[in-house]
């Protein structure tokens, strides 16, 4: 397996890693919901939210730098919100002449843009904390706890189990193509063949990948049958939540509730 680097889980011995995955899952979702509910320009609440996420990052032993670096990767979408700087009506801050038009940066527009970017940045960090501190099988437990249907959870589980196998297959296909097409690896060199031909090659690779997936799923099915699979998805019952788990859950939700009240008051 070459692509385990894809798995964001980082094994540590922190309190965050020990926390029950169900509590973590629910609190992270609630946290991101609170971030979403915080109105534009509620700066003190943003600072509090960021402080929470930052302190958990420190508590998690993952390294603040690791989380912040990953969080930046998810941000290019901010471009989509850039135009609101100019289109929101309000007190003009700066006028930029562009050809025959004038772009006007407004105070409200800038506040709106920064709010969107901050909210998205804080939310992404919470999601990273969840993924980096919880192994995927534990996330499946959390999904069952929030009553996601068993069939869907089973598809999630199977997908995760074979994800790395199939990503490996895809990487092998790409390596084979690179080996046969005399790729120089230098930037700026002209790609070979015509566009339609290159697309057909990539399409053939995708078809190949899907066919391998089909054949693999046949083998998996036979293997499941031989182990007693009868079409029913079964799972062991979930263990009861311990006291520490309840305590963290209730405290966490209470803090988030307070933050909502605060953001309404401001």
């Amino acid at each position, binding site marked *: 397996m070459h692509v385990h680097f*894809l798995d*964001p889980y980082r094994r540590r011995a922190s309190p965050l890693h020990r926390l029950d995955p169900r509590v973590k899952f629910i609190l992270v*979702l609630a946290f*991101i919901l609170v971030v*979403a509910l915080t*109105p534009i320009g509620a700066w003190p609440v943003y600072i509090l939210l960021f402080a929470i996420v930052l302190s958990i990052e420190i508590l998690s032993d993952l390294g603040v730098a690791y989380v912040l670096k990953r969080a930046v*990767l*998810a*941000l*290019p979408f901010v471009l989509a*919100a850039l*135009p*609101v700087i100019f*289109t*929101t*009506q*309000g007190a003009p801050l700066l006028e930029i002449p562009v050809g025959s038009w*004038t772009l006007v940066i407004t105070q409200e527009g800038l506040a*709106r843009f920064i709010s969107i*970017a901050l909210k*998205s*940045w804080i*939310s*992404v960090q919470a*999601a990273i904390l969840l993924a980096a501190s919880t192994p995927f099988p534990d996330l499946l437990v959390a999904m069952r706890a929030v009553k996601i249907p068993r*069939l*869907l959870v*089973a*598809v*999630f589980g*199977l*997908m995760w*189990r*074979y*994800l790395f*196998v*199939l*990503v490996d297959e*895809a990487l092998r296909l*790409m390596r084979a193509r690179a080996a046969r097409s005399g790729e120089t690896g230098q930037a700026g060199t002209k790609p070979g063949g015509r*566009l339609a031909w*290159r*697309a*057909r*090659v*990539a*399409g*053939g690779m*995708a*078809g*190949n*990948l*899907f*066919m391998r*997936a*089909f054949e693999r*799923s046949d083998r998996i*099915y036979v293997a*499941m049958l031989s182990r007693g699979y009868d*079409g029913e998805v079964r799972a062991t019952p979930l263990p009861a939540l311990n006291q520490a788990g309840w305590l963290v859950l209730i405290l966490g939700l209470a803090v988030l509730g307070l933050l909502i009240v605060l953001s309404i008051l401001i």
Partner: protein
Amino acid sequence: MLLSPVAMHIPDGFLSPRVSIILWIVSIAIIAYALRRVGKDLGERQLPLMGVLAAAIFAGQMLNFTVVGGTSGHLMGAAIATILLGPWAAILVMTTVVGVQALIFQDGGLVVLGANIFNMAIVGVAVSYMIFRTVQRIAGGRKWGLFVGGFLAAWLSVEIAALATALELAVSGTSPANLAILAMAGIHALIGIGEGLITVGALAFINATRPDLLSAKEPAKGSNALLWIGGLLIALALVIVSPLASADPDGLEWVAEQQGFLINAQSPQYNIIPDYVLPGVSNEALATILAGVLGVLIVFGVALAVAYTRRGRQPSSSQ
């Protein structure tokens, strides 16, 4: 490694809570129905197939080909999943793909996951299904129907899903409607061609090696007609609403204002994009709707005309 080739995974913070929650409810209802259908119609074999195919679609999104310079074509996968698995299982598979991308790779947010599932799993699959079935029926079992249908399904599913994304951003007051919709529609019209070409290549490969996988993917009728109509309605609705919203962003901003999120509607000083208006119709809203409907009809008309001429030319090529 770039894991999200198609700039369509909305991160948290970009949609208003109301839009997120409404789309969660819609997505959950449709997923619940899809689960029932899959549980009823399809055999127990389907479970491992769905899991592994979801993994394959995730991995398949890494396969790319150079278009020009630094840009490259990729796969979203809704169309190929629909063709290989049938619509209901495809909705579940795409839901799983989008869900893992959000949960593990932060490709798209968690509170907005309902919206991302709606765009990529539900709109993508419904539109793919509608187009693919229509072309297949016109083709009457001949092979070109597979490829023409596959290409159109892939292209249109990307385009309509992008329109849905842009509209959600605009309703949330995150992007101005006139810019977001035209930018998303324009970029994804090109991205969709890459999707279409890869999908056709994949279908050609599978057709040459395991043609049995591409036949008999049509279970019991009835409520699949419902999905066909759903796909058509989604496509039409978005094609009509988008130019309307684009030409008249105030309408959308009124919606945004109702949510208490927008400070005020604006009168752009930089009217970059000329309005979509039909000449000779005085009512502007009516004119934009007519223009949208006309566009859809023209596209369908051309597709049908091409299909029928092909049909006449090769009367005995069915197998």
